[in-house]
């Protein structure tokens, strides 16, 4: 009999049992606890298990994008619990794994809330726990993937790229095809963000051609991304072909927001092709759909594409329409209490249009600024192309 067999058998059964218990106890316990009281649950014995922490980790991931503040609270709770779990409850390697995941989730939640320095610190802490055990290399790569994303948000692009490549290699070695795809995709996104559209497109195309098992959602996202790069590269037929490949897949998957985002990119494509009438008539229903989905920011960004197009057209009537639309976007952003910095930039655009000093380039600059606030909410609007 192998020396570790008894320990393994006991732990494996224990974890299985904990998972079964957690599936029925964790969610009701969390949902019956007010947010103010959540941190007190770190003392609750039902949550001080591997299975319960794993369940909380899944909930953090599920809630993070819709309710990031709640996701962060859950992640913070998981850290507090994980730090209280000690040997002999589990072998050392599992305790380090438990703590590593808790800190990873916490670091990722902080990043979503744009608290990048703290995110980096939390992910470094996760790294330190996992580095202690060479058996945790795959777990460590997951932490470093998060670290690469935080570094990207901090504009530390070289470090980010190097980490994505390192993670991809670890995932490849573990035959973790899904994460290999994610790592490559992340590299492509980074190139795209750096406006290196050619290299981004190449990364995406290589991924599509890699014969890896790629799920439908990722295939659609790849076509969408390739289409977006092609728009920027002026390769319009390929842009449209790829966007038109993405849209039916999104439709099949019921991804309403992504459908409209791909359609918005087609609107930009029509503008770049010089067909302003088509761009405006295409973008208007897209904007309406965003409003119907209560996606005020997306609707505003789409509206700014229309404003840019109307200003490109330049006739007095079109400029008046641009002015009215820009004012409506300001009102929508204000009613929805969206970022003050975005409202300031939009207000500036409205005033510039009213004074007949705005250009299509200014509308584009404001749109890019509003978009950039998603990852750099502290950024100030600088009037680079403003006239007058």
């Amino acid at each position, binding site marked *: 009999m192998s020396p*570790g067999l008894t320990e393994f058998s006991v732990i494996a059964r224990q974890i299985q049992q904990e998972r079964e218990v957690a599936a029925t106890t964790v969610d009701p316990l969390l949902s019956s606890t007010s947010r103010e009281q959540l941190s007190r649950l770190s003392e609750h014995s039902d949550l001080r298990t591997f299975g319960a922490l794993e369940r909380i980790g899944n909930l953090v991931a599920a809630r993070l994008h819709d309710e990031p503040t709640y996701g962060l609270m859950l992640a913070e709770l998981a850290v507090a619990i994980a730090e209280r779990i000690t040997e002999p409850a589990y072998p050392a390697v599992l305790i380090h794994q438990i703590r590593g995941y808790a800190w990873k989730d916490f670091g990722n939640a902080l990043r979503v809330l744009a608290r990048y320095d703290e995110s980096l610190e939390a992910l470094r802490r996760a790294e330190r726990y996992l580095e202690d055990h060479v058996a945790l290399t795959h777990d460590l790569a997951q932490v470093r993937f998060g670290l690469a994303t935080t570094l990207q948000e901090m504009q530390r692009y070289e470090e980010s790229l190097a980490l994505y490549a390192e993670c991809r290699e670890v995932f490849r070695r573990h035959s973790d095809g899904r994460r290999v795809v994610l790592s490559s995709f992340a590299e492509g996104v980074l190139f795209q963000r750096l406006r290196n559209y050619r290299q981004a497109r190449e990364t995406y195309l290589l991924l599509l051609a890699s014969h890896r098992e790629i799920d439908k959602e990722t295939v659609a996202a790849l076509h969408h991304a390739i289409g977006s790069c092609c728009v920027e590269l002026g390769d319009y037929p390929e842009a449209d072909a790829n966007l038109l490949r993405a849209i039916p897949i999104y439709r099949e998957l019921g991804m309403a927001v992504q459908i409209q985002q791909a359609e918005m990119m087609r609107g930009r494509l029509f503008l770049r092709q010089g067909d302003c009438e088509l761009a405006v008539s295409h973008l208007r229903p897209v904007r309406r759909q965003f409003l119907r989905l209560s996606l005020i920011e997306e609707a505003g960004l789409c509206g700014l594409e229309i404003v840019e197009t109307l200003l490109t057209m330049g006739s007095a009537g079109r400029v008046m329409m641009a002015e009215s639309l820009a004012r409506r976007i300001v009102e929508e952003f204000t009613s929805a209490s969206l970022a003050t910095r975005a409202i300031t930039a939009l207000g500036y655009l409205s005033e510039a249009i009213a004074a007949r000093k705005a250009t299509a380039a200014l509308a584009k600059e404001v749109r890019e600024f509003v978009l950039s606030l998603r990852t750099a909410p502290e950024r100030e609007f600088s009037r680079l192309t403003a006239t007058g």
Partner: protein
Amino acid sequence: MPDSIAPEAGDEAAYEHYFATLSAIAALQFQIPAADAEVLANEVLLASLRHRLNESNAERWLVGAITSAARGYR
């Protein structure tokens, strides 16, 4: 290695099987002393519990994990 088992849920046969194989990889391929190779194999198998391996991915994942662990061994 047969690919019909995963070391989940206290499956002792799967554990014994993978333990022997992973220890052998660490010891023979990476010249790690036998006792340490066994410790590594055991830790990799314990760590794998988090990953809910199944019949189709267990072997490849575990071989990748022991290879990574052996490379990091000092």
